[in-house]
């Protein structure tokens, strides 16, 4: 057993994959904590799909080289995040409807662009579901640099992010730059998605953002503990999922998400109703309450 593991990770591509999966697991989980608490799962899912046309253009211009794809993805992700943020404020249409329209439209555009290439199916599937074993040293460096930057920014603005998530009206009376902080959070989510692109791909991204954080949410009443637990579960899912995919020979992105989902289900079933058991307040709080 141990020998088989050592043998598996003696392949450099497996070791790189392990590092990528672990690190991406941590970043997604920490950022995902705010996504879960703010009720932004749909936004995260939509945003990851929205970057596909950017990736597609990069793919048409420079082929499968991962560095240009990274920057194309980054540009599209940040623009999409800001665009969705602006649209959901500016129109009469409800936020989730606006997001749905943009998300599906952009995703289709991406598929259309990629489908102009002959034999596109394999590459498309890599964008959709990840290709962790193709992570190169340079990719790993990018993940590490941007991942550290994300974690440092969250650490620096932790108390502000907590307040705008818990009570945006309080944040206003404390004269915090609410709008700026919200956009900063959107950009952090965008960068997280780009960094994780190779590991789990566009279609499974939301699971890495939401599932470990939601699992941790069931386990604790303390936000810092929730973040740490989420990071642990995320990293563990990444490592175990990758190992599993090697031995059972299944797609790595799917294996990682399945491990995370299994952990969630185990916690959900064995820690029954810890949240609902708490004293109910008289009035039902709306999910993801926002200032009017």
């Amino acid at each position, binding site marked *: 057993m141990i020998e088989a593991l050592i043998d598996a990770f003696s392949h450099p591509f497996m070791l790189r994959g392990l590092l990528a999966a672990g690190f991406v697991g941590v970043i997604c989980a920490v950022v995902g904590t705010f996504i879960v608490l703010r009720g932004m799962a749909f936004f995260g899912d939509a945003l990851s799909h929205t970057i596909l046309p950017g990736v597609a253009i990069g793919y048409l211009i420079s082929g499968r080289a991962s560095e240009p794809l990274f920057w194309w993805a980054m540009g599209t992700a940040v623009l999409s995040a800001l665009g969705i943020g602006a649209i959901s404020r500016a129109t009469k249409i409800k936020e989730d409807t606006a997001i749905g329209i943009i998300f599906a439209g952009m995703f289709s555009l991406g598929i259309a662009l990629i489908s102009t290439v002959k034999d596109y199916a394999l590459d498309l599937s890599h964008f959709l579901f990840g290709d962790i074993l193709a992570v190169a040293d340079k990719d790993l460096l990018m993940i590490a640099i941007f991942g550290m930057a994300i974690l440092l920014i969250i650490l620096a603005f932790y108390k502000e992010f907590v307040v705008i998530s*818990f009570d945006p009206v*309080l944040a206003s009376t404390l004269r915090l730059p609410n*709008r700026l902080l919200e956009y900063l959070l959107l950009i952090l989510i965008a960068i997280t998605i780009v960094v994780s692109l190779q590991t789990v791909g566009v279609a499974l991204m939301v699971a890495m953002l939401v599932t470990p954080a939601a699992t941790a949410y069931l386990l604790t009443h303390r936000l810092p503990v929730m973040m740490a637990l989420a990071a642990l579960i995320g990293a563990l899912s990444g490592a175990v999922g990758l190992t599993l995919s090697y031995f059972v020979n299944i797609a790595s992105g799917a294996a990682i998400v399945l491990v995370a989902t299994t952990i969630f289900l185990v916690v959900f079933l064995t820690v029954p109703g810890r949240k609902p058991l708490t004293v109910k307040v008289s009035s039902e709080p709306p999910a993801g309450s926002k200032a009017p």
Partner: protein
Amino acid sequence: MAIIKEFERTDHAIRRQHAHHHENEPILKITNLTVEYQSGTALQDLNLLIPRAARLAVLGPNGAGKSTLLKVVAGVLTPTRGTVEVFGEEPNEHICIAYVQQRNQVDWNFPVSVRDVVMMGRIGKLGLLRRPGRVDRNIVERALEVVNMANLASRQISELSGGQQQRMFIARALAQEAEIMLMDEPLTGLDTGAQEDIFQILDTLRNNRVTVLVALHDLKMAAERFDGVILLNHLLVAMGSPTDVFTTEKLAQAYGSQRVAATSAWLMIDEACCEDGGHSHD
């Protein structure tokens, strides 16, 4: 574009620092205030002058603009026309205004403790990138003691009763070192005991010269427990002592004459005011 604007606003706010308090200005001066929503006019041509350390009830029928008034004073809502001055300056320059919104506006399952929430009041003073120090922790503990919640400080907020939730928010306002406290229906849904606890804390606030504006439904409570009332119906119907304001005529102007005439409760309140207004019981 929105981001650039926001940068400018933030930069402006940081450079101007926080507003100065001109002590000889009234704590709150509202001039020709009009607030219009897409759905219609919430407040129209409101003029108010509010003295320091007063405890005022804001009354009026549903949709009369009570919450709107509180939000404009808090500086979280920009008026369509007119001005609001707190100590002679715009409210959104101040961090001494605490706004306690209705309890159902908050996600009570958020993974924070009572102490965490009260500490949030310190963030305006702390500024970006700084962590709470010993001074902040002391202020938070003292605020928790004032509202008699020191023993509940580590509780997750979903484990609190309605009265405790409200007291936690008052503690947060204390930690914010607020000089004006705006409360939107803080007593709704609380039992008499819990309401009594809140009034005791409000008495402490008055001793500390904190000005308190409370949006209310209960006219009787307004008459018995407040220094003055502001009666709204989009327009300012009346402001003054409960005795002066709670006349059948003015109530009818705010609530509609049919409702006042039909509900004996209103008349009862009218009489209660008169009793308060100086009948001796000797």
